[in-house]
């Protein structure tokens, strides 16, 4: 059994690279995902993941499948969409989710248009679903840099984010820098998604960010606990996803996200913090006590 788990990673370098890339993404994904969830922005993460496509596509248009060009392009597009949706919402007194939805849909359509103008369906599939089993050095360096930046950002701004997420009105009265933490968080989110799309593609990158955090919510009622559980879930999902992909010839990014989906569904049922079975059990005990 242990051999089945270990041997693909011992024998093949591409599997080692894939696992290492996934571990790096799991660190960032769990940190960012938990705060996305607490800020009630899970769907915004999904929208921004789609919004980076035209930037990456323009990078691809000029430089082919070049990591740096696609990263810079994706970063600019993601930040631009996040910034524009925020400004439009504030200036026109509408909700940010509607402006973000509008901008990301336009952005996604533009991205697909640019890719189809230059490349074929294989290139489009690479951008949409990533290439975790073919991580080159450049992509791994990008993932290293992303992890370092993300950890540094969270070390410096963890308390800012907690304060801002839990009671932004109160925090505004305490610190003149209260608003900046949100923008730093958005930047880290965009950067993480851009780095993630090289490995897992734009469609799946957000999965490793949101699903572990959503799963962790069912097991802990403390933020520290949620962060730890989200990281464990992300690592387990990556490991099982890569193994399933290796043994059953499944698309890797989909397999990873589907395993994360399995953990999520199990947690919905069995979770100690609001899981369905726990709630039913509590109701039954309450009824018995009343009788």
């Amino acid at each position: 059994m242990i051999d089945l788990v270990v041997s693909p990673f011992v024998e093949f370098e591409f599997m080692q690279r894939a696992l290492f890339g996934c571990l790096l993404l799991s660190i960032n994904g769990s940190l960012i995902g938990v705060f996305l969830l607490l800020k009630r922005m899970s769907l915004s993460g999904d929208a921004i993941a789609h919004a980076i496509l035209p930037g990456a596509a323009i990078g691809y248009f000029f430089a082919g499948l070049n990591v740096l060009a696609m990263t810079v392009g994706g970063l600019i597009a993601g930040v631009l969409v996040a910034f524009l949706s925020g400004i439009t919402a504030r200036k026109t007194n509408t909700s940010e989710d509607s402006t973000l939805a509008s901008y990301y849909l336009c952005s996604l359509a533009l991205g697909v248009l640019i890719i189809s103008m230059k490349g074929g369906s294989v290139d489009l599939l690479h951008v949409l679903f990533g290439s975790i089993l073919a991580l080159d050095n450049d992509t791994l360096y990008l993932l290293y840099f992303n992890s370092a930046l993300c950890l540094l950002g969270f070390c410096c701004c963890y308390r800012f984010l907690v304060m801002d997420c839990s009671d932004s009105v109160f925090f505004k009265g305490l610190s003149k820098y209260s608003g900046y933490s949100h923008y730093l968080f958005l930047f880290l989110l965009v950067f993480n998604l851009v780095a993630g799309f090289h490995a897992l593609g734009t469609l799946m990158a957000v999965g490793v960010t949101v699903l572990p955090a959503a799963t962790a919510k069912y097991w802990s009622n403390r933020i520290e606990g949620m962060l730890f559980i989200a990281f464990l879930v992300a690592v387990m999902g990556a490991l099982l996803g890569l193994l399933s992909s290796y043994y059953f010839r499944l698309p890797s990014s989909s397999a990873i996200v589907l395993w994360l989906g399995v953990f999520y569904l199990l947690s919905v049922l069995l979770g100690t913090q609001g899981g369905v079975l726990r709630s039913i059990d509590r109701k039954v005990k309450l009824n018995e006590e009343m009788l």
Partner: protein
Amino acid sequence: MIKFENVSLHRSQRCLLNHCDLTIERGGFYALTGDNGSGKSSILQVILGELAVSSGSIIKEFGQGDYSYLPQKIQLDTQFPMSVEQAVMAGLWNKFGAISALKPKHFERIEQALDEVGIAHLKHASINQLSGGQLQRLLFARMLVQEASLLLLDEPLASIDQKAKNILLDILKMKHQQGVTILITLHDAGLVKRYASQQLHISDQKIRLCNTDFTHSDECCRLPIKQMAC
């Protein structure tokens, strides 16, 4: 400490204040009264700088971190995964900031504040387990550890029982005796009379400084200690 000079204030094209002067002295306990929609919360927002006045000027002798504001609607995310102790800890932000470690004396201060508001036994409970009244007590505890010189409270007693109201108002009275300036919006004339030293009553786009011995009807404000120029 806070001075409104010839201030007019509009909200959604409705005039709330019309050329009013107002002075809130340091160390006073002011009860802000008036009908629903008369502009009590808006005045607090003007003081906080969240709402711009239509005309006139405001002089504020306090900076960020010198005040604590308790809004009418609880803004604390009650689903946030944190304990009561951690939520109160937020009030100590000016002492520990973004990076410094908390010291034992900080935890003692939190415990003391929770004890003062009567929820020390809930220190390790999650905030999503608290009732509305307990949550309000938590917010008072957070305000206490902050040790601000100006407290702005917007109808903070709406969701709590009489016993808790008395406890929290007694705490405010004690803070007032320690020299803290308090501006609180209240509807209960009995509580205004019992706790506040001065009453600011808003009606007909005017603010009047009244004696708290009077009930807050328009009639009372025809007998002000000091009529504000409106």
